[in-house]
C-alpha cells in the first residue's frame, strides 16, 4: 500500500488521502498546458496513475487557465474538489481555486514578480515564494520559469527529480540537447532553492513511485489512435473545440500509415469529403462538435440513404449555438438519435472512458462497414481534455479485428447482378445488407443517390420500390440489433435497491462516487451505457430496482427520457449543466440527496 502523503503537521489534517492534487495556473499564453503535461508525464513515468483536467475560461473573467493533475498509486478516474500543491503564476489563480485549497496546501509563486509582490498565502496555507524568473534566467532564459516551478514542486512533494528529467527530454528532445540541458538545470535550481530556503518538514508531502509503466493520453488522442488502428486512412475536418485534437493527432501520423488529413473549408465539405473517400473504399472519418453536427446533418441523411460506411465523431461541448465552447455538456443526444429530416437509420456509440474511446472507435469502423451505415461516435469535452494513464496493454494492437462487411470483388459479382447483368448496390437482401463494390472493380460500376432509389441506385418514386428500400434500410438496424452485443458496463452490487444509469464520461466520477456512497452505507448498482442506438434493454434492471437515477451533463435529461421511453418507468434525474463535469464527491452527494433528501458527503 502507498504511504499516505503527510500534510503540514502544524495544522490538523482534514484529509489523509492517498492521492495528490497538483495544479499550475495562470493566464492563457503562459504555457500552462504544456507545463502541466510535463509534470503529468513525469508522474506517469514514475509509475503513478494520473488523471488530468483543465480549467479554461474564468468564473470571474476571461484569461485564466489551469492544468490540474490528480495522481496516486491506485487508479484515479475523476477530479476532486481539493488542491494540495498549486503553482500560481497569477494571484487570480489562487482566487479561482479558493474552494479547492485547504489548510496545508502549498502555493508556489514568484514573489519577485511585481504582480505577485503583495501576495500572501491565505490563512493556514503555505506560501512558497520562489524567484522563478530569476532562477530561469540563471539557467539560460526566463522562458523556463515554469520549469523552475516544476523543480520546486518536485522538492515540495519529495518527488525524485529524475522523473521530471525524462519528461523534459520527451518534451524538448527535438529542440536539441542544450535546450534539454538548460531545462533540467532550471528544474534543479528550483529544487535547490526550496531545499535551501525551506524546511521540508514544513509541508512534508511525500510522493510514492512504482515500477509500473504507463501511457498517458486523452480521449481525442485515443479516438485518433483507434482510427489508425482500425485502418482509417482518410480524415477530413474543420477545427472546433474540443474535437480539434483528433485532427491534430492524426495530422502527420495518418500520413505515416498511408493516409491523409484534409482541413476542409467547413463541416459541409468535411463530411462530404469523407463520404467521397468512403465511396472510394477508404475507411473514413470526420470529427466535430455540436455546431458542426448541425451543419453535417443534411449529408448525414445522404450517407445513410446511399448506405455508405462512415464514422462521424461528435465531441460534445456546451450548446446550443456557440454555447460555452470550452465547457462540458452532454446535450447532443437528441440531435444524434433523431437529427435530420426523414427517417435516418444510424448507429450511435458513445465511449465512457478514455480507453474506451480507443476501443469504441475501432468498433465504430467495423459497424459502419458491416451495416453500411453512418455511425455517430460520441465523446464529450471532459474526456477530450483529460489525460489519463493506462497500462500500455490496454491498447493491444494485436487484438484489433477488421470487419469490412459485404465487400465483393471481381469474381464475386454474379449473385448480385440483375437480369441485365447490372450490379445492384442496394439489393434488398433478407438481412438488409447489400453487396458493395469499390470503384475500380470491373463490372461493378453503379451509381447511388440521395433520392429514393431502386436496387440499381437509380432514382424512383415507385411506391413499391420505395417501401422495399425503406424496409431494407430499417432491416439493417434490426439485423444489427439482433447480431450485436449491445451490452453495458456494470459496477457495484447487482442486487442493490438503487440503480444509477449514465452515459459518456460520467463513469469515472460515478465509480469513485460509489466508494464514497459505500462509506455512507448507500449501496448502488451502476450501469454505464456505451451504446445509445441500438442500446441494451434495461427494462429488467430498471424494474427490479427501487430507485432509478439517471446521471448526465445536460439540463433536461435526454438519456433519462430515452430510458423512460424504453422501460415505461419513471426515473429520477441528476443533471448538471454548469459547464463543469461531475466530481465524485458532488455526485455522491447529489445521489444521496435524491435518495433521502439533503445530506453532505465529504471525501
Amino acid at each position, binding site marked *: 500500500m502507498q504511504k499516505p502523503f503527510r500534510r503540514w503537521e502544524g495544522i490538523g489534517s482534514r484529509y489523509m488521502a492517498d492521492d495528490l492534487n497538483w495544479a499550475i495556473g495562470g493566464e492563457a499564453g503562459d504555457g500552462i498546458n504544456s507545463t502541466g503535461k510535463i509534470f503529468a508525464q513525469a508522474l*506517469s*513515468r514514475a509509475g503513478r496513475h494520473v488523471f488530468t483536467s483543465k480549467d479554461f475560461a474564468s468564473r470571474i473573467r476571461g484569461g485564466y487557465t489551469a492544468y490540474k493533475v490528480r495522481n496516486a498509486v491506485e487508479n484515479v478516474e475523476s477530479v476532486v474538489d481539493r488542491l494540495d500543491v498549486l503553482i500560481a503564476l497569477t494571484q487570480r489563480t489562487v482566487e479561482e481555486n479558493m474552494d479547492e485549497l485547504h489548510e496545508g496546501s502549498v502555493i508556489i509563486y514568484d514573489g519577485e514578480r511585481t504582480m505577485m509582490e503583495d501576495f500572501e498565502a491565505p490563512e493556514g496555507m503555505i506560501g512558497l515564494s520562489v524567484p522563478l524568473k530569476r532562477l530561469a534566467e540563471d539557467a539560460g532564459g526566463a522562458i523556463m520559469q515554469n520549469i523552475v516551478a516544476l523543480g520546486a514542486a518536485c522538492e515540495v512533494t519529495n518527488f525524485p527529480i529524475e522523473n521530471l528529467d525524462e519528461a523534459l527530454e*520527451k518534451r524538448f528532445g527535438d529542440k536539441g540537447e542544450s535546450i534539454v540541458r538548460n531545462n533540467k538545470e532550471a528544474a534543479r535550481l528550483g529544487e535547490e532553492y526550496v531545499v535551501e530556503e525551506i524546511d521540508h518538514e514544513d509541508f512534508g508531502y511525500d510522493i510514492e513511485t512504482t515500477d509500473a*509503466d504507463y*501511457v*498517458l*493520453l486523452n480521449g481525442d*488522442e485515443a479516438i485518433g489512435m483507434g482510427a*489508425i*488502428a482500425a*485502418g482509417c*486512412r*482518410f480524415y*477530413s475536418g474543420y477545427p472546433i473545440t474540443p474535437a480539434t485534437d483528433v485532427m491534430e493527432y492524426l495530422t502527420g501520423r495518418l500520413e505515416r*500509415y*498511408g493516409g*491523409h488529413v*484534409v482541413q476542409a*473549408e*467547413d463541416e*459541409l*465539405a468535411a463530411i*462530404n*469529403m*469523407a*463520404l*467521397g*473517400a*468512403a*465511396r*472510394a*473504399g*477508404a475507411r*473514413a472519418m470526420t470529427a466535430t462538435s455540436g455546431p458542426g453536427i448541425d451543419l453535417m446533418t*443534411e*449529408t448525414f441523411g*445522404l450517407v445513410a440513404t*446511399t448506405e455508405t460506411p462512415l464514422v462521424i465523431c461528435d465531441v460534445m461541448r456546451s450548446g446550443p449555438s456557440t454555447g460555452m465552447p470550452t465547457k462540458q455538456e452532454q446535450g447532443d443526444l437528441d440531435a444524434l438519435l433523431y437529427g435530420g429530416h426523414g427517417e435516418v437509420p444510424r448507429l450511435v456509440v458513445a465511449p465512457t472512458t478514455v480507453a474506451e474511446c480507443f476501443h469504441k472507435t475501432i468498433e465504430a469502423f467495423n459497424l459502419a462497414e458491416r451495416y453500411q451505415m453512418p455511425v455517430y461516435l460520441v465523446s464529450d469535452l471532459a474526456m477530450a481534455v483529460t489525460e489519463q494513464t493506462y497500462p*500500455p496493454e490496454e*491498447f493491444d*494492437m*494485436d487484438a*484489433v*479485428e*477488421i470487419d469490412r462487411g459485404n465487400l465483393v470483388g471481381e469474381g464475386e459479382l454474379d449473385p448480385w447482378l440483375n437480369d441485365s447483368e447490372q450490379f445492384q448496390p442496394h439489393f434488398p437482401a433478407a438481412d438488409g445488407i447489400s453487396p458493395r463494390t*469499390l*470503384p*475500380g*472493380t*470491373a463490372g*461493378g*460500376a*453503379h*451509381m*447511388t*443517390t*440521395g*433520392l429514393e432509389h431502386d436496387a440499381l441506385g*437509380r*432514382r424512383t418514386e415507385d411506391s413499391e420500390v420505395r417501401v422495399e428500400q425503406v424496409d431494407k434500410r430499417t432491416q439493417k438496424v434490426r439485423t444489427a440489433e439482433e447480431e450485436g452485443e449491445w451490452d453495458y458496463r456494470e459496477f457495484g452490487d447487482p442486487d442493490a435497491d438503487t440503480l444509477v444509469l449514465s452515459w459518456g464520461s460520467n463513469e469515472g466520477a460515478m465509480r469513485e462516487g460509489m466508494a464514497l456512497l459505500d462509506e455512507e452505507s448507500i449501496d448502488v448498482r451502476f450501469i454505464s451505457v456505451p451504446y445509445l442506438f441500438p442500446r441494451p434493454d434495461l427494462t429488467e434492471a430498471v424494474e427490479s430496482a427501487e430507485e432509478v437515477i439517471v446521471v448526465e451533463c445536460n439540463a433536461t435529461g435526454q438519456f433519462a427520457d430515452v430510458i423512460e421511453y424504453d422501460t415505461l418507468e419513471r426515473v429520477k434525474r441528476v443533471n448538471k449543466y454548469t459547464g463543469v463535469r461531475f466530481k465524485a464527491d458532488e455526485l455522491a452527494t447529489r445521489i444521496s440527496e435524491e435518495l433521502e433528501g439533503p445530506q453532505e458527503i465529504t471525501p
Partner: protein
Amino acid sequence: MSSDVRFIDFKSDKQPTWCPGCGDFGTMNGMMKALANTGNDPDNTFIVAGIGCSGKIGTYMHSYALHGVHGRALPVGIGVKTANPDLEVMVSGGDGDGYSIGAGHFVHAVRRNVDMSYVVMDNRIYGLTKGQFSPTSREDFETATSPEGPKQAPVNPLALALSAGGTFIAQTFSSDAQRHTEIVQEAVEHDGFGFVNVYSPCVTFNDVDTYDYFRDTIVDLDEEDHDPTDRDAAAERITDPETEYQGVIYRDEDSVPYGDLHDLGSNMADVPDGAPENATDLVREFY
C-alpha cells in the same frame, strides 16, 4: 483501361428526361466522349453529380457515381480522388449548385487543385425548381422570383476561379459538340483542377440566354490571338463584359496537383486485416 472503350459505354440504359432541346444533352455527350477519348472506362471513373436538372447525368451516364446533396459535389469528388488516385474523377452540376449554394466549395476546390475535372452546366437559371434566377442570371433577367430582374451583379465564375489560383479555366457551348468535347478532354488531361463552364441553355425557363444568343455572340479563342498560358491575357478576357468566350482561357503549365504535393499515391481502400504494421509505435509515443 482498355483502348476500345467507346463513349457509348458511358451511357446508361436510362433515357434522359430532360426537356427536348435542353443543353444538358450536348454537355453530357461531350463529357462521355472526353472520358472515352482519354482512355478511361466506366469501372475506373467516378462521376459526382450535383442537384438540379444538370445533376441527372449521374443517372444517364454509366460509371461509379454519386448524386449527392445540393451544392456539395466538389468535396465528394475531392474525397474520392484523394482516397484512390487511380480513379478518374469528374464532378458536374448546375450554376446554382456550383456558384450559389456550393460557391464556398468552388473557391476552395480551385485552390486545392486536386487532379480532377469540374464541368458546370451554366444555364443562368434554376431549372429543376422551375425558373428562379440563378447566380449567373443577368441583372435585369425577369423570373418568378425577380419580376424586375435580380438587380445584383451576376457571378463571374471564371474570374472567381482565376483569383482563387485556378490552373485550368475554360468555357464551352454545349451545342458546339466538337469544341466542347475537345476542351473537356483537355480539362480531364490537365494535371490539376480542370474547370469548364459550359453554356448549356435551358429552353424552358430562359428565353434570354438561348442557343441563338450564344451562337450569335460567342467568340472562339482558337480564332483569336490568345495565349492561354498568359495569365494577364486570361484576366483581360475573363473580365471583358462585352464578350462570351469559348475555349481554354487559362492553363498553368507548371500546375502541380494536390496529390503530388502531398505525396498521395496509394489506394486507401486497401485495409489490412488487423491493425497496421507498427501500430504499437503509436502506443509507445504516449509513454
